[in-house]
C-alpha cells in the first residue's frame, strides 16, 4: 500500500500545474464571459500529451494512463473547468474506446490522430429522450452492404461543433423485441462526413468555455470497419466508458473545489465579514477545513478508481463513489466559498461565482448524483 505518486507522475503534475497557472488560468474569466472555446489551449494540451493519456506512447499517445490523467487534468480543471471537460471527454470517451475497441482500420485512421490531439473528439450517446436511461435510445444504424446508415439526434454533446471525430451509439438491431441494451453498436465517424449538422450552442449556467450542442445525424454513411467492438454490444462499451468518464468528472470537481479553496485562502486576509478578516474567523476557518478534508477524501477515491481501471480490475462501485463524493462536496465547497467571500464572491470581483456555476454540472453529467447512488446501491444489494 502506498498513497504517494511516483516521481514520474510528480514531475507530470508539476508540469501540468505550471501549464495551468501560466496558460490556462489567465484567460478563464474572459472565456467564461465570452463563451469562447479555448482552441489554442487545446492545441497546447495536445503538445503536452494531455489528449492521449489513454493511448500508449507507441501509438501516438502519452500513455499517462487513467491515474496520470487524473493527476494532470486536475490541474487544468482547477484553472478552467471548460477547458478540462473538453480534454476529459476527448480522453475518456473518445480516444479510450477508439484504442480499446477499435479494429486495425480504426487504429490506423484515427488512433494516432486522436491520441496526439491532432483531431478532437466528441461522444454521441445522449438523446433528448435518454439521459440517465441510456438504453432508451432511438438513433438507428441501418445496414446497407458494407455500410451502415445512421439517423438520429444526439444532444448535450460537449464540443460537438468543434470536434472532428465522434464516437456515436446507434441501434443496429432493429427488431423491437430485442432490448436496446443488446441492440446498440458504437461507431467512429468523421465530422466532415456528409449528414452531420449541429444545433445552436446551448446557453448554460456554467462551463461556458466548452461548447454544448445538439448533433443531428441524417443518413450518415459509415463503413462497417468503423464499428467499435462487436455488433450489438455497444451498450457495454458505453457502460465501460462511463466508468472512465465518471472518474474524469470526479477529477473535474476536485480541481474546481481546490480552486475555490485556494481562492478563499488567498483572500483570507483581505476579505472581511463584519470587519474581521476571514482568516481570523473560526467559522470561516472551520469551513475551509471541511472543504480541504472532502477534497482529499475525494481525490483518494478518484485515484483508487483510476488505478483499478489502469489495472483492468472492476471499479464500477469505486468510480461511482468517487464521482458521488467529489461532485457533491465540490458543489458544497463552491457555494460555501461564494458565501464566505460575500458580495465579492457573488460578483465578477473574483472567480468564486464562476467556479460555483462551473461546478454544478458535475452532479448532472456522466450520470447524475442519483445515478451514482443507483449504481452503488446495486453493488451493495
Amino acid at each position, binding site marked *: 500500500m502506498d498513497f504517494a505518486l511516483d516521481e514520474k507522475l510528480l514531475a507530470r503534475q508539476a508540469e501540468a500545474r505550471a501549464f495551468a497557472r501560466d496558460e490556462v488560468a489567465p484567460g478563464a474569466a474572459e472565456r467564461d464571459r465570452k463563451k469562447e472555446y479555448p482552441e489554442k489551449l487545446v492545441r497546447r494540451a495536445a503538445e503536452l500529451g494531455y489528449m492521449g493519456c489513454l493511448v500508449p506512447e507507441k501509438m501516438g499517445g502519452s500513455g499517462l494512463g487513467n491515474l496520470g490523467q487524473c493527476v494532470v487534468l486536475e490541474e487544468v480543471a482547477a484553472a478552467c473547468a471548460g477547458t478540462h471537460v473538453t480534454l476529459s471527454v476527448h480522453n475518456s470517451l473518445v480516444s479510450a474506446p477508439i484504442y480499446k475497441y477499435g479494429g486495425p482500420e480504426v487504429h490506423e485512421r484515427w488512433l494516432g490522430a486522436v491520441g496526439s490531439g491532432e483531431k478532437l473528439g466528441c461522444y454521441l450517446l445522449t438523446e433528448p429522450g435518454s439521459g440517465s436511461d441510456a438504453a432508451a435510445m432511438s438513433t438507428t444504424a441501418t445496414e446497407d452492404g458494407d455500410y451502415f446508415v445512421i439517423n438520429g439526434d444526439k444532444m448535450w454533446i460537449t464540443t460537438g461543433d468543434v470536434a472532428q471525430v465522434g464516437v456515436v451509439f446507434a441501434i443496429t438491431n432493429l427488431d423491437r423485441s430485442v432490448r436496446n441494451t443488446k441492440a446498440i453498436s458504437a461507431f467512429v465517424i468523421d465530422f466532415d462526413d456528409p449528414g452531420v449538422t449541429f444545433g445552436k450552442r446551448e446557453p448554460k449556467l456554467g462551463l461556458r468555455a466548452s461548447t454544448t450542442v445538439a448533433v443531428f445525424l441524417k443518413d450518415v454513411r459509415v463503413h462497417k470497419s468503423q464499428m467499435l467492438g462487436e455488433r450489438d454490444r455497444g451498450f457495454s462499451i458505453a457502460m465501460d466508458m462511463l466508468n472512465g468518464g465518471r472518474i474524469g468528472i470526479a477529477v473535474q470537481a476536485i480541481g474546481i473545489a481546490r480552486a475555490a479553496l485556494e481562492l478563499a485562502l488567498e483572500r483570507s486576509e483581505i476579505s*472581511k*465579514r*463584519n470587519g474581521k478578516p476571514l482568516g481570523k474567523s473560526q467559522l470561516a476557518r472551520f469551513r475551509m477545513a471541511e472543504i480541504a478534508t472532502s477534497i482529499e477524501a475525494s481525490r483518494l477515491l478518484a485515484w483508487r478508481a483510476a488505478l483499478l481501471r489502469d489495472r483492468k480490475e472492476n471499479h464500477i462501485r469505486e468510480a461511482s463513489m468517487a464521482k458521488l463524493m467529489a461532485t457533491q462536496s465540490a458543489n458544497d465547497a463552491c457555494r460555501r466559498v461564494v458565501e464566505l467571500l460575500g458580495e465579492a464572491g457573488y460578483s465578477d470581483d473574483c472567480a468564486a461565482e464562476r467556479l460555483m456555476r462551473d461546478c454544478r454540472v458535475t452532479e*448532472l453529467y456522466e450520470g447524475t448524483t442519483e445515478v451514482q447512488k443507483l449504481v452503488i446501491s446495486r453493488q451493495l444489494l
Partner: protein
Amino acid sequence: MTDYGEYLGLDLDEDQKMILEMVAQLSSELLAPAADVIDRDEAIPANVRATLAESGLFGLRAPETFGGVDLDDSCYQFSLATLAHGSASVALDVLVQSSLLLEPLAKFALDDEGISAWAESVVSGEARGALAWQESSNSLSNSDLKTELRTIDGEIQLSGVKNWVLGAPEADRFLVLAKEGDYSSWFMVAADAAGVEIGKKRTRLGMRGISVAAVEFTNVAIAESNRIGTVGNGKEILEFISCRAQVGLVALATGLIAAARDAAAQYATERRQFKRPIADFEAIREKLAGAESAHASAASLLASCARLSDGGGGHDRKRLHFGMAARIQATDLAMKVADDALQTFGGYGYSQEYPVERFYRDARYLALAFGGNDPIRLRLARSILPSSDSASRKSD
C-alpha cells in the same frame, strides 16, 4: 401562486385578500414571463416598473403622506413572497424601495416636506433610492464605518466609499450612513450632487435585475436638510432597517422556494425516464417533499415575523432577534430547494432555457445579503446566551 391566506389559515379581510390576489396576478402574468429577460439584461424593464408603481406596490408600506396605503406587514410580506415567486429581482427592488427606504423615512423623517415629496416620487415609480451603508462585504454593523462627516472650511462635508450598494446605478438618491463625531447618522444625498461618483456596475451571479456598484463620496456638501433622524441615531435606524431587511429576506426566500418547488413538481410530472414519470422515483419525491416542507417552514416563519411587526409597540430588539433567526433558516432552505429543483431537472437544469438555474443563482444572494448568514449567526447566538455572563456578550 400560493394563496397564503388559505395555505396558512390566516385571518384576512377582503382588502387584504384583494391585494394578495392582485399581486398574484401581476406576478404570474407580468413578472414570471419577464424574469428571464430581467436576468439576461440585468435590468427591470421600465414598463414592468411602471406597472408595479401603478398597482401601488412601492407604496404598500408607505404612509398616506407619501402616497402609500400603509398596509399591515402580514399582507405586505406575503405580497413580497408572491412577487418573488415571479421574479426575485423584482421582489428585491420592491423590498428595497417600499420597505427598507420608505419605512425608515416614514418613521424618522415623516414631517420633512422635501423627503415626503421625494418619497411620493418613489411610490409613483419616478424615483429610486439606494441604501449606502455597507463598506466591507457582509456587514450589518457599523463597527467598520469609515465614511464620515467633517467640517472643512466651515462647510460640512461627507466623504467615504460605500461598496456593493444595491441599486446604486439606477438611484436618484442615497441614504448614507456616516460617522458624525463619536456616533453615526444618516443623510440623504442626491446621486447628482457634486462629489458623488458611482463606480462600475458589477456583473453578478444572480438577482441581476438590481445592479450593484460602489459609490464614492468626496467632500459632498451636507446641509441639515439632508439629515434623516437625529444626530447620532445612526445605529437605531440601522437596526430598524436591518430588522426589516431580515423579514424581507424571509419573504423572498418563501417566494423562491414556491417557484422552485412548482417548477420541479411540474417537470417531474412531465419528464419520463425508464418509462415512468420521474415523479415516481423516491429520490425525486424526497426532493419535492423537502421543497414543500421548506415552503411550509419559510411561510410560517414569515407569518410569525409579520405578526410580531404588526403587534407594534416596543420590542424592536426582539423583532430583530426573531427576524435573524427566521432569516437564517428560510434562506438556507431556499438555497437547498433551489439546488434540489435544479437537480430534479437533470441536465436540463443546467440549461438557461429553463428557469431553475436562475432560481439557483438568485437564491444564493439570500445567504449573503443584509449582513450575511454567518455574521448573523454569530450575532444571534450572543442574544440567546444567559445574561449571567456579560463578558461574552461584549465580545464579537
